[in-house]
């Protein structure tokens, strides 16, 4: 993809956690790009670095022991150094807004829904016609007027998530970052929220970065997918390509799991071993210990990102393709 048609590019993002005096990478050389109005998904399990990635975009890393070690972000052709935390923090709101897994803990329990939405609107545009804008946002997230006077605890989980989305949209962001927005919800409520995000995306032409462990959720909203494992972006491509011809053994295993494929013996096709936690820098492919087709070099040499096919739009970080 050329730089020209993406509104957002992040390159070489690395995030370091300092634990007991050691520097451990939560995210390493990860990247993303995003077109106007497009939805991309970052897929990974716990410890893959997907949430840290999102938090680095929002400059919301836990301040004490985490820092961005490197990373460049380009928005509409303007470059930002992601190491510069305060510079990144200025992009919050207008450029990026975020919704989280657990809306209740991000809503102020002592403020009505209306005042929390108003706060978001004023933050971005102090002279806005607040009443008009609130009504607009409420319609956008399909919430009835009576919710405005309610407090967060009086709403259901699905309604709270709608409120959180309304607050995020109150700043008119270019990109909505959604970190596991439906994981805490019941499956029917999840379907409602996914349908809602899809509508909003279409109605206001908003771009979406969706972070999830669930390939099903990602594929229902996103045109392109970035798969993360052990802090690295290990595969990226169009949703259809990733699902039909996954190139990385990990992606293949994830898809088998999501389809609940059973072998001839009736057992589920599965991955052995455990998800890696924070990785130490260097050495081989993070997936090598669990990989069924690992070669000797996988343990020692980190594979580089290589084009698989699809005119260079589908790439994977695996020695089988380099």
């Amino acid at each position, binding site marked *: 993809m050329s730089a020209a048609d993406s509104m957002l590019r992040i390159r070489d993002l690395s995030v370091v956690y300092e634990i007991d005096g050691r520097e451990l990478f939560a995210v390493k050389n990860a990247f993303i790009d995003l077109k106007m109005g497009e939805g991309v998904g970052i897929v990974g*399990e*716990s410890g893959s670095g997907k949430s840290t990635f999102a938090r680095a975009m929002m400059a919301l890393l836990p301040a004490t022991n985490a820092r961005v070690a490197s990373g460049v972000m380009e928005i509409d052709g303007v470059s930002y150094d992601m190491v510069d935390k305060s510079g990144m923090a200025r992009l919050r709101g207008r450029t990026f807004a975020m919704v989280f897994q657990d809306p209740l803990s991000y809503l102020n329990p002592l403020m009505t829904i209306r005042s929390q939405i108003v706060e978001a609107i004023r933050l971005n545009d102090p002279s806005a016609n607040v009443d008009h804008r609130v009504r607009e946002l409420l319609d956008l997230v399909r919430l009835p007027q009576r919710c405005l006077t309610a407090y967060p605890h009086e709403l259901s989980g699905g309604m709270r998530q709608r409120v959180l989305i309304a607050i995020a949209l109150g700043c008119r962001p270019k990109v909505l970052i959604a970190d596991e927005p439906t994981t805490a919800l*019941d*499956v*029917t409520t*999840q*379907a*409602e929220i*996914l*349908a809602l995000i*899809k509508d909003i995306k279409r109605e206001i032409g908003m771009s979406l970065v969706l972070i999830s*462990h*669930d*390939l*099903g*959720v990602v*594929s*229902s909203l996103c045109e392109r997918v970035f798969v993360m494992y052990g802090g690295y972006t290990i595969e990226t491509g169009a949703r259809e390509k990733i*699902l039909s011809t996954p190139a990385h053994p990990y992606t293949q*295993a*994830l*898809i*088998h*799991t*999501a*389809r*609940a494929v*059973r072998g001839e013996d*009736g*057992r*589920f*096709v*599965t*991955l*052995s071993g*455990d*998800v890696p936690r924070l990785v130490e820098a260097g050495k081989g492919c993070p997936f090598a210990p*669990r990989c069924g087709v690992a070669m000797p070099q996988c343990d020692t040499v980190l594979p580089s990102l290589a084009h698989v096919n699809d005119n260079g739009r589908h790439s994977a970080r695996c020695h089988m393709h380099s």
Partner: protein
Amino acid sequence: MIAVDAAPVLELDEVERTFVGRDGSEVKAVRPSRLHIAPGEIVALVGESGSGKSTLAKIALALELPDKGSVRLEGRDLLRLSKRELRRRRIAMQPVFQDPTAAFNPRRSIRQVLYEAIACRSGHTADPERLALEILHRVGLTPAANFIDRYPHEISGGQRQRLGIARALAAKPKIIIADEPLSGADVSIRGQILNLLLDLRREEGLSILFITHDISIAEVFADRVVVMYRGMIVEEGPASEVLKNPAHPYTRLLWAAVPHIDGDDIEAVRRLIIARPEGSGCPFYSRCVSAIERCAQEMPGSHSLGQTRQYRCFVQPQNQIAG
């Protein structure tokens, strides 16, 4: 594999439970329900939060007493046993928990956890160490000798869930009652746990009551599926048949709502989502696209569909709105 004609291991008949709030409001957590589980059978109990599935599981384990009805384990009515006898009998049912972290006393080593469970089975065990190692090996915590003297919080979440199954096994149960055992596990670990449960069923003839919110797992994993909505069993039957061709509008909704990786299901599920005021009849009335007038006032009875299936709905399956 499933001895259909054999006497059920666990029989819940006409059990019901109503919780009364401080303000006197009543919540029907479980409406009169029947649940039988045959030896070696895997039954998935599916429902969303508030469906009463966890309460029903607690009633099955005799941890929660039903207001009415009976709970029989291997033919014995647990509710009529003395406390002492109940303690002895219930060992044949073992729970596996959702959160494997809270499932273990943080002060016990894996050895102590297993010894305690081994000591509970009837009969004296001469060599608990050999047995404990064997069980660890059985659930795939190998080499077992490396695990036995560690503490549950020192192993990974996936391994802890295996340990939870190991503890259940150590008591030599007839049935395992697992409440959302996959919720805490990473996607790539889930298959491992399901495979382990499948192996245990095959090799030890264990019955499994698998409580889950995820109907897609029920489809691939269970022999029989039981769907609950607000305390009512709305549909039950062989998993493959029920999910290929649901007979209750709620089952249809649940099934359509699962985001499948192949295909854009959102449009299909949109047609099934509505909201209307509550009625006094069927609890699903307020969300049901197929509802007729009668549903608002009357509670539907149970209808049979073939030999093995049952559903509670006034609207015949062929007249229900599909997604």
